[in-house]
């Protein structure tokens, strides 16, 4: 789960990181009022889960409250990478001397949290890593001991030659690390970490990504989820305990298991079609999940054919068959359906489907080919 900048900053402020004051506005008038309250130049920043906000025109410097109102009018409602901006952060503009980067990720290779720091801040760290990798210092942390002072100081001196700044940066790393661990992050970063002309260290932008597996035990963090920033179909799917990701194609896929679901999408493409989605109904057998999955898939008007691919292990294929029958009785399908199922209780599933007027096969390739052909329609052309 991604947090908005203002949410990440609030958390980091709680850990003692020096962050300029800021408040969220949802209307231009609110933005103006906040700017007036601060009585100084502000930044108006789009709050969406997308990189490149600045380049898209979603971050603006405003000298006066009237200016803030005008910029907020332009930013609120604009689209950045298909996401509509619903909120802006109005925050006191910091004087910028130098810009550095401090971040932590869970690194798959070392299987540890790893710090990344760079004096080349203010730009995307991936870009720095690609173009000038020597400008990044990577320091793995053993989570059983936490961030040691000597490692933090080593990174502090990598960023700044001066002892006072190195110490200040190291202290911020300690706070960032504490927030990262307590908030269940897979990524936390401050970019840029600014040194003002007065020599003060200020975190001007922050980002946090939370490991979804942490949300059950961190209800306060889970409550920060902003559903307005997600596709409605994905919100609905999550509530039904389904993993769903919407794509642009026309073959709706319902599969059990993430690997098989990806392989099914790939096979749709292999046979010349385009998958409309990723959807994993998971391991447990439950007809209700199938009903929900069909409702979500059929709500997508791009879908021209539905493909079920079920390999029954824990999943009982008769449960899936019952789910298909129940769902289609309540809401008759407007598009063709192709069913492939094999494994646990296959004979029973086939019987249930046949009795209710469905045909099903046990061969994955055949089913995918058929679904692709049906999606293209009788003319053989993509709709």
């Amino acid at each position, binding site marked *: 789960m991604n947090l908005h900048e203002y949410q990440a900053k609030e958390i980091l402020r709680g850990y003692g990181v020096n962050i300029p004051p800021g408040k969220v506005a949802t209307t231009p008038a609110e933005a103006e009022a906040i700017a007036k309250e601060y009585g100084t130049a502000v930044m108006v920043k789009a709050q969406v889960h997308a990189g490149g906000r600045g380049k898209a025109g979603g971050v603006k410097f405003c000298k006066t409250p009237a200016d803030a109102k005008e910029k907020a009018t332009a930013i609120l409602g604009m689209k950045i990478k298909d996401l509509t901006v619903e909120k802006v952060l109005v925050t006191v503009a910091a004087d910028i001397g130098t810009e550095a980067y401090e971040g932590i990720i869970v690194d798959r290779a070392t299987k540890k949290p790893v710090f990344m720091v760079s004096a080349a801040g203010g730009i995307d760290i991936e870009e720095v890593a690609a173009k000038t990798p020597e400008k990044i210092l990577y320091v793995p942390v053993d989570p059983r001991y936490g961030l040691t002072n000597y490692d933090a100081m080593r990174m502090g001196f990598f960023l700044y030659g001066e002892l006072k700044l190195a110490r200040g940066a190291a202290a911020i790393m300690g706070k960032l690390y504490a927030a990262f661990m307590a908030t269940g992050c897979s990524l936390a970063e401050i970019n840029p970490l600014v040194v003002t002309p007065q020599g003060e260290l200020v975190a001007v932008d922050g980002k946090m990504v939370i*490991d979804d597996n942490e949300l059950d035990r961190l209800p306060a963090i889970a409550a920060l989820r902003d559903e307005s920033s997600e596709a409605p179909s994905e919100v609905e799917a999550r509530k039904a305990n389904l993993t769903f990701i919407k794509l642009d194609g026309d073959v709706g896929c319902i599969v059990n298991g993430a*690997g098989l679901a990806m392989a099914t999408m790939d096979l749709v493409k292999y046979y010349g079609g385009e998958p409309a989605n990723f959807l994993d109904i998971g*391991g447990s057998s439950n007809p209700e999940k199938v009903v929900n999955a069909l409702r979500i898939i059929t709500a997508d008007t791009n879908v021209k054919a539905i493909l079920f691919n079920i390999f029954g292990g824990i999943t009982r294929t008769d449960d899936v068959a019952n789910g298909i029958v129940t769902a289609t009785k309540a809401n008759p399908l407007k598009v063709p359906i192709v069913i492939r199922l094999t494994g646990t209780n296959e004979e029973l599933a086939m019987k249930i489907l046949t009795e209710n007027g469905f045909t099903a096969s046990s061969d994955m390739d055949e089913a995918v080919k058929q679904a692709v052909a049906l999606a293209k329609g009788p003319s053989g052309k993509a709709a």
Partner: protein
Amino acid sequence: MSIFIDKNTKLVVQGITGRDGSFHTKQMMEYGTQVIAGVTPGKGGQKFEGTVPIFNTVMDAVKATGANTSVIYVPPPFAADAIMEAAAAGVALVVCITEGVPVLDMTKVYPFVKERGVRLLGPNCPGLITPGVSKVGIIPGRICLPGPVGVVSRSGTLTYEVVYQLTRAGIGQTTCVGIGGDPINGTNFIDCLEAFEKDPKTRAIAMMGEIGGTDEQEAAVFVKMHMKKPVVGFIAGQTAPPGRRMGHAGAIISGSSGTAAEKLEAFAAAGIGIAKRPLDFVELIRVRLG
């Protein structure tokens, strides 16, 4: 022969009285796995299905029965501790089926098990099976057939699909291993490839990877440098969009890294046969078995 489990595998089931644990324990017993103990705190002294003794702790179970392998079916908040408990109790192999273990928990668990010389498989994995001999986990026994192919995969049902296609074509398996779909797992592709290379009965390896991370790329280098046996590989997620978690916690393209194209390129450079779809494994493996 086989890797990691065989006829001497003596299993303790953590979470044996839970819904998933009890269901799969029965399946494992039916398949012939030696399930010699179970653990559910507070139910020590009882028996599962009237035969398998239940203990309060893994340490008690190991002391009383000599179990050498553990399988974990406990819910996510307790899984990390369950892994450490098993490792501390002295089993040689811990298989964690549980999905949803927080990755920061795993950053602490991983060094704990490594330092004790214990092999961890998973979490978020289907376990493993040596056809006709023993199964630990949830892979359906009836789709497997004893034979010469080692199977290793990050996925569950995709593994079943490939194993099913192989079995249908009369091509059997030495051991099928699901290493799991999480970003931090105990056993990786290289661990399995190394074991298959040493296993005298394994003559070819089928490997199913997916998007995210660099495990497959590193495995490809290992194949090129250290393996004589032929390997055939597949990568799921060629149509996956970047930045989205595709069901498995580890199946995510971060920025421009971890793509299917990058992994397939590494496979090709290492001389690994590339299955463009699951069905292709059958012919590619058949040719390599000669």
